């Protein structure tokens, strides 16, 4: 795997790496992709209609409003909160 591809994947994943870490990631990913490449050329296709045995569409729960967790409980794990989730300014 090329360095540019790892940089691209890191950008998609919202991760940043030092140059040294990037070098290691290229080595690791190249080695891992070798295993994944074993299935690239198999003649097989996925049929999504065969694969829903755990979905019970005839028995979905009713669309009713239910009580949810209290605001203070939802906020208790946010590092930065003032009775709401605080984010950096997103609109210039």
């Amino acid at each position, binding site marked *: 795997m090329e360095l540019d591809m790892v940089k691209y994947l890191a950008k998609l*994943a919202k991760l940043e790496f030092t140059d040294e870490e990037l070098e290691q990631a290229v080595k690791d990913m190249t080695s891992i992709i070798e295993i994944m490449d074993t299935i690239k050329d198999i003649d097989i296709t996925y049929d999504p209609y065969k694969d829903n045995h755990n979905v019970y569409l005839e028995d979905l*729960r009713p669309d009713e409003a239910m009580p949810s967790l209290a605001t203070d409980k939802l906020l208790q794990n946010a590092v930065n909160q003032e009775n709401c989730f605080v984010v950096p300014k997103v609109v210039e």
Partner: protein
Amino acid sequence: MVELTVKSLREKLDKKEVSARELTQAYLDRIESVDKKVESYITVTPEAALSAADKAQEKINAGEASSLCGIPLAIKDNICTEGVKTTCASRMLENFVPPYNATVMDKLENEGIVMLGKTSMDEFAMGGSTQTSAFAKTKNPYDLTRVPGGSSGGSAAAVGADLCAAALGSDTGGSIRQPAAFCGVTGIKPTYGRVSRYGLVAFASSLDQIGPVARSAEDCGIILNAISGYDFHDGTSSRLPVDDYTSKIGMSMKGVKIAVVSEFFAEGVDENVRKSVLAAVDTYKAMGAEIIEASMPSLKYAIAAYYLIASAEASSNLSRYDGIKFGHRADVGGSYNDLIVASRSEGFGDEVKRRILLGNYALSSGYYDAYYGKAMGLKQKIREEYADIFTKCDLIITPTAPSVAYGINENISDPKKMYQADFCTVTVNIASLPALSTTCGYDENGMPIGMSIVGKMWDETTIIGAADAFEKQFDRIGASL
């Protein structure tokens, strides 16, 4: 006393030979003296445990004790426990205190269990050694220089080292069975959908399943009885009725058809493991089971299919960690994006980052069909091959891992080697099947060897009955610490 099964402890508690508080204190004392060496727990909760023990004792005294009332259990640290830190062994969740219980915790608390604490694991359950834990790199109780397996290594080591009566783990690609094998205990991954995943920190949602780790198959059945069933909060939990998973304890193996799938015993499996598992198959034959041979041609692709599907799902599931709502928040200025990138880069460890990169690769434009699409096709092929084998048999026996527990510094720096070691376990998750690992032998160094018994969907009862039949004639050698 701490080495007894859940079933034996139940009798002792009911006969008042020991109180729930005394039993809990015995485990807490042992954790205090032994866990410095094993490092199986991330968090121990002594005060809450003793308080739960006192409540359990009231139920016992009133003659209202259910099977797990007053039994001290350990819980893997990716299962949400209201008010008790749930770290997933990650810096990302170092200070995360869940505002709610996982459904399995509600069920166990209703039973009156005593939670001793939260056990270590590979970070976000990604790994097979528990050495990617940010907080407690657990050791194998049979040899402290070796790994306990993973990712539920803390749970398996805690059971193997008599630091709890039993534990809960979770299994995405072998994470209950492989550490159970390495630590000489019994663990079952139930059928996908049998146990609610609500409150289990998500790794790969189509594969994850919670299950027990214990000293016997019967104990696994007792715990499975308590945690199984449909849950309103988990749309993938099954509405099928819950069996009594101990109902086939004492079953005869006469006429039970067991398949041996040749590919699971081929190259890559150590000779001592192969011999030991095949000797167990012979034991079943001597008990009257009928042994048949079978084949699974797609097994050679299983590792690739599993890692692509699991990593693709992980990359999506872990995108929720943005440093804002919960989890590590980097102390940086700059934009919204800068905050997210810095929080994730500081919070996740190397293996988690690798899996996220792999998942993004498998799902990215231009690669999706070649990797994720093929992996999903293989998933169906593997399911079909299992279905075909199960038209001819009731159970399948395989090795749980290709080797016994390895040294702490072996394999860790070679992700490819680590991934390939999972080939015995991952197909069961891919096919949503139930499977149990129990000890079937020891190598020349006294390290436990595990065999896996795989069953048909929803047939945990037969697996547990068959495992119990083997365990009753097998002399388990405990770890000495």
